[in-house]
C-alpha cells in the first residue's frame, strides 16, 4: 500500500513541527525515517497512523484518508510499549477484536505472530510484568498480528540490551520483508537505519531533506548536513567542501589530498586505536591501522584523504 503526503503542515503550541510539500513511500518498501531528536519523525509517524491532525495538507495510506481509516489500515509499534491488564495473549487478541477480525482467526494469528517474534512462551504471562526486551518483542508481535498493509515502528530498538538489539536487528528486516507491507521505521541511530531499512528518508527540523535508497543516500548525501548525520567528516579541501566517510582518512600520505592534522589524543577502541584531533576547525577522528605509527598527542601530522564526496552547504 502506497503512503503519500502532500502539502503537509503540522504545528504544536504555535511552533511549526512538520513542513513536507510532497513525500511518498512506494508499496512494499521498508524505509527508515532517520534524523536527530526533534526532527519530527515520530510526529510524522503519528500523523500517518491517524493519531494527530495536520494543520493542513493531505495524508493518504492507499485510499485511506481520514484519521480513522488510516488507523485501521496501519499497525503501530510505539516507542514505549504499553499494555492493558491481562496476559500477552489477551493484549495481542484485543487489536483483532477491535478490528472485527473473525474470532476463529484470532488464535492462529496470535500464534503465528508469537512464533515469528519468539514470544510463544510469554503468551500466558501478565503483559505488564515483561522485561524491556520481552516487551519490545510483544509490541512487535501485536503489530504483526494485525496483518495491516502499513507497519509503523517507532524506535523499535530503544532501551533494549545488546543481545536483544543484535537479535532484533536481524529479525525485524526478516519479518518485514516476509510480508507484503509498506513499513516506516523511526530511528535516530544511523546503524539501525541502514540495518533495518532499504530506503532512508533523512529528516531535520520537520523537513525531509534527503530520500532515496539506502545505498544512494549514503554514497551521495548531497549536503553537508546529511553527510554529517550519516557519520561523514566535513572538511574544506582545496576550497571545496567535501565529506569524508568513516575510514576515509589515513595517517601519512595517501592517494588523495594531504592535510595537516593536529592530534590531541590517541584512544584505544577495542582492538584498534583512534587518533582524535582537528583539521583546521573540524573535529576529526582517524582510525589507525595495525602498522600505522602511533602519533604523539600535541603533534601535527599529515593525513591523506583517501575517499570523499563533494557536498553543498
Amino acid at each position, binding site marked *: 500500500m502506497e503512503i503519500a503526503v502532500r502539502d503537509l503542515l503540522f504545528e504544536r503550541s504555535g511552533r511549526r513541527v512538520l513542513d513536507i510539500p510532497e513525500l511518498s513511500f512506494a508499496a512494499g518498501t521498508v524505509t527508515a525515517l532517520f534524523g536527530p531528536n526533534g526532527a519530527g519523525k515520530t510526529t510524522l509517524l*503519528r500523523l500517518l*497512523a*491517524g*493519531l494527530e491532525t495536520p494543520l493542513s495538507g493531505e495524508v493518504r495510506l492507499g485510499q485511506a484518508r481520514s484519521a*480513522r481509516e488510516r*488507523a*485501521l489500515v*496501519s*499497525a*503501530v509499534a*510505539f516507542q*514505549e510499549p*504499553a499494555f*492493558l*491488564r491481562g496476559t500477552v495473549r489477551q493484549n495481542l487478541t*484485543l*487489536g483483532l477484536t*477491535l*478490528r472485527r477480525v473473525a474470532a476463529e482467526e484470532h488464535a492462529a494469528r496470535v500464534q503465528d505472530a508469537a512464533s515469528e517474534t519468539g514470544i510463544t512462551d510469554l503468551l500466558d504471562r501478565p503483559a505488564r510484568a515483561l522485561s524491556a526486551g520481552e516487551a519490545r518483542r510483544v509490541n512487535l508481535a501485536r503489530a504483526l498480528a*494485525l496483518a495491516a498493509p502499513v507497519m509503523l515502528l517507532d524506535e523499535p530498538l530503544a532501551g533494549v540490551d545488546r543481545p536483544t538489539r543484535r537479535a532484533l536487528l536481524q529479525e525485524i528486516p526478516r519479518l518485514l520483508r516476509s510480508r507484503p507491507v509498506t513499513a516506516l521505521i523511526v530511528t535516530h541511530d544511523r546503524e539501525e537505519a541502514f540495518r533495518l531499512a532499504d530506503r532512508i528518508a533523512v529528516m531535520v527540523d520537520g523537513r525531509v531533506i534527503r530520500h532515496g535508497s539506502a545505498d544512494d543516500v549514503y554514497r551521495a548525501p548531497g549536503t553537508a548536513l546529511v553527510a554529517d548525520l550519516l557519520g561523514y567528516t566535513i572538511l574544506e579541501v582545496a576550497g571545496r567542501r567535501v565529506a569524508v566517510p568513516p575510514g576515509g582518512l589515513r595517517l601519512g600520505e595517501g592517494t588523495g589530498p594531504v592535510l595537516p592534522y593536529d592530534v590531541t589524543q590517541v584512544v584505544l577502541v577495542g582492538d584498534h586505536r583512534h587518533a582524535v584531533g582537528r583539521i583546521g576547525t573540524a573535529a576529526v577522528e582517524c582510525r589507525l591501522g595495525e602498522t600505522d605509527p602511533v602519533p604523539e598527542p600535541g603533534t601535527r601530522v599529515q593525513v591523506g584523504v583517501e575517499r570523499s564526496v563533494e557536498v553543498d552547504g
Partner: protein
Amino acid sequence: MSDFGEALRSAWHLLAADAEIRGIILRTLAISGAATACAMLLGIPAGYALARGRFRGRTLLLGLVNTGMGMPPVVVGLIVWLVLARGGVFGPLHLLYTPQAMVIAQFLIAMPLVIGFTTASVQALPGALPDLLRSLGAGRLQRLWLLCREARLGLLAAVMAAFGAIISEVGAAMTVGGNLRGSTRVLTTAIVTVTGRGEIPQALALGIILLLLALAVNLVLTLVQQRR
C-alpha cells in the same frame, strides 16, 4: 453494652417484623442507588474528560471538583432547597419534599466524588494507552470503556466513596426530603427522629441496619473491584 445487645435484638426484630422499616430500607437504597447511578453516568465521562482533556479552565474546574468533594451535605441540601422551593427557579416543578428532590441533592453530593476519583484513576493509567487503543482500532466509546475497565480499581473506589457518603448523610436528606413518614423518610432521618424521641435502642438498631447495608453494598463492589 446492654443497650447494644438490645439494639442488635431490636435490629433483627425490625428487619423481620416491621414493614415500615423494610420500606425505609428499600427507599434508602432506591434514593441513594439512583443518585449514585446518575453520578456515575455523568461523573465518569466528566472525570475522563478532565483527566485526558487539555482545555482552558481545566485546573480551575479540577479545583472546584476537589472542593466539592468536601462540600458539607447540609449546604448542598440548602442550595437544592432554595432552587426547588416555591419561589426558586424550579419551584413550579413541585419537587421539594419528594424522593426526587433527595436524589437530586444526593447526586450533587456524589458527583464531585465520582469525578475526582475518576480523574485521578484515569490520570494514573499509562499515558500511552489511549493512543495505543486508537491505533488498534478502538472508537471513542470503546476507548472510554476499555480505559474505564483499566481504571476499574479507582472507579469502583469512586462508586464506594460516593454511595458511602450519600447513604450516610442526613443534612441534605432532611432539608430537601423533610423526613415525611412513608414518603421521604430514609434510614438516617429515621435515626434522627427516633433519637429525638429518646428511643436510643431503636436508633442504635437502625444505625446497625444502615451499617450492614453499607457493608453489604461495599462488599459486593469490592468483590467486583478485586476480581482478576
